[in-house]
């Protein structure tokens, strides 16, 4: 059957509009539903106290702190490693066996379910390195988990920097390192930041890998070696063990708000940085 160009054009437009519309409605519906269910649980006590009675009463402050600490460890460890690897792959070596091996490993790692990272973290960090269930074990496990994402997005960001910028910098007497820090990084930064933001999102939302490595203690973590429970884990336990659905939704709502906040702040920072050059 032949369809005229005009009609196919119109059909395509309708299909594409409706897919986008469907996805946006779906996403908004989920966010709004959770916020509606959860906001009622949010109050000062909920935000400022640590959980009592397995989370039936009290607040969730220690899980918020735990989430932020675990995520911070993961980002602080994974960012230099990931961005460094990306620069190695793009600026310091030519395509060859080594780059293929690194890329292949990174891609394979990206496809592994997070519970497998959890198991690895449990065996390696918790038991073998004797770090125990701790912020550090959890953070390091998450760092390994988000490494492929950061490598990949950074690599793509670096590759989109026009090679002319490099030539200009070299032609002005720049060394390779000066060229990278002064001409390449500023242009690649928004893309690199996206990778880091994605990584933060995955860390904040991760359950399986953290429950096996950071534990599920409700105490306030006082050092990197304290066991802790992240918000996502808290939510999972509250909901699964039927402790309190209301508080589970409250935790979820706060989690969503936290992620939105991180995204907004990161975007503002990146835009401010980019705006200087354009």
């Amino acid at each position, binding site marked *: 059957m032949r369809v005229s160009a005009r009609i196919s054009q119109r059909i395509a437009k309708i299909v594409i509009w409706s897919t986008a519309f469907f996805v946006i409605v779906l996403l908004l519906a989920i966010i709004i539903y959770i916020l509606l269910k959860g906001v009622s649980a949010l109050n000062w006590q909920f935000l400022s106290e640590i959980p009592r009675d397995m989370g039936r009463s009290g607040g969730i402050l220690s899980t918020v702190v735990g989430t932020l600490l675990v995520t911070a460890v993961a980002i602080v460890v994974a960012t230099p490693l990931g961005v460094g690897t990306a620069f190695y792959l793009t600026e310091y070596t030519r395509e060859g066996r080594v780059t293929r091996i690194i890329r292949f490993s990174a891609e394979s790692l990206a496809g592994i379910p997070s519970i497998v990272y959890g198991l690895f973290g449990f065996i390696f960090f918790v038991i073998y390195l004797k770090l125990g269930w701790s912020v550090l074990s959890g953070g390091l496990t998450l760092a390994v988990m988000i490494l492929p994402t950061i490598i990949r997005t950074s690599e793509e960001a670096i590759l989109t920097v026009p090679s002319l*910028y490099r030539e200009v910098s*070299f032609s*002005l007497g*720049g*060394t390779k390192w*000066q060229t990278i820090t002064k001409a390449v990084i500023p242009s690649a930064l928004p893309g690199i930041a996206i990778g880091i933001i994605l990584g933060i999102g995955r860390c904040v939302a991760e359950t399986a890998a953290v429950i096996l490595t950071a534990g599920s203690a409700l105490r306030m973590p006082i050092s990197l070696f304290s066991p802790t429970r992240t918000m996502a884990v808290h939510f999972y336990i509250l909901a699964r063990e039927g402790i309190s659905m209301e508080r589970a939704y409250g935790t979820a709502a706060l989690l969503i708000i936290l992620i939105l906040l991180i995204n907004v702040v990161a975007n503002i920072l990146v835009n401010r940085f980019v705006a200087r*050059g354009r």
Partner: protein
Amino acid sequence: MTPQPKIIIRKLNFYYQKKLVIRELNLEILSNEILAVFGPANSGTTTLLRTMNRLCDLIPGAHLEGEILLDGKNIYAPDISVTELRRRVGMVFDVPTPLPMSIFENVAYGPRLSSMKTKAAVVEVVERALRMAVLWDEVKDRLNTPALRLSGGQQQRLCIARVLALEPEVILLDRPCSGLDPVSTVKIEESLQQLKEHFTIVIAPHNVQQAGRVADQVAFMLMGSLIEHGITAEVFENPTDKRTGDYITGRFG
């Protein structure tokens, strides 16, 4: 005073992979003169310019034979600092290439790399460079605006200023006016006439007319070989090689 050769090129061969793009080239470039290296597309003019500040080093698989002497010293000698060389031999590209930063930062980019300069010294160098590139009056009130907001002609003069801020000895210009309107082209050509008092200039013009307008000497290249080299007026009026004459009068190319 008789002009001294600033650059002497001896038996230069240049290969991309196995392909020979510059063949047995010998050339002397005099101080404080403008030399135009011209020829049809793929004659090797861009490559020749890039061998003079070793920007061709960046091309994977490229290979060079022969020597290029700058003030009598081979720039391909092992003890030469390439970054130092590129500060002495600056380059302007065929498209305006401001970096995505402010006007001031673009011009200050080179001086800041050498890290010996104080802030006040950098400010001074930037102003001097912008004045020499005849851009100062147009941008002095908005040095902190992004360079990408300038017009194409202004961007190219900014790139010239950026090279001048290095306080180089030689300036290479690779078709610097190819994307510019006639007015901008005239401005750049005029500034070149002033600049040659202080610098040695090698330009790959984007057409024969520009070579005739700006150059003291011209070198005609074809397929990677130097066909003819001499004083502009003499080459244009009395080319010794038939191919030079044909190209200048527009019979081919």
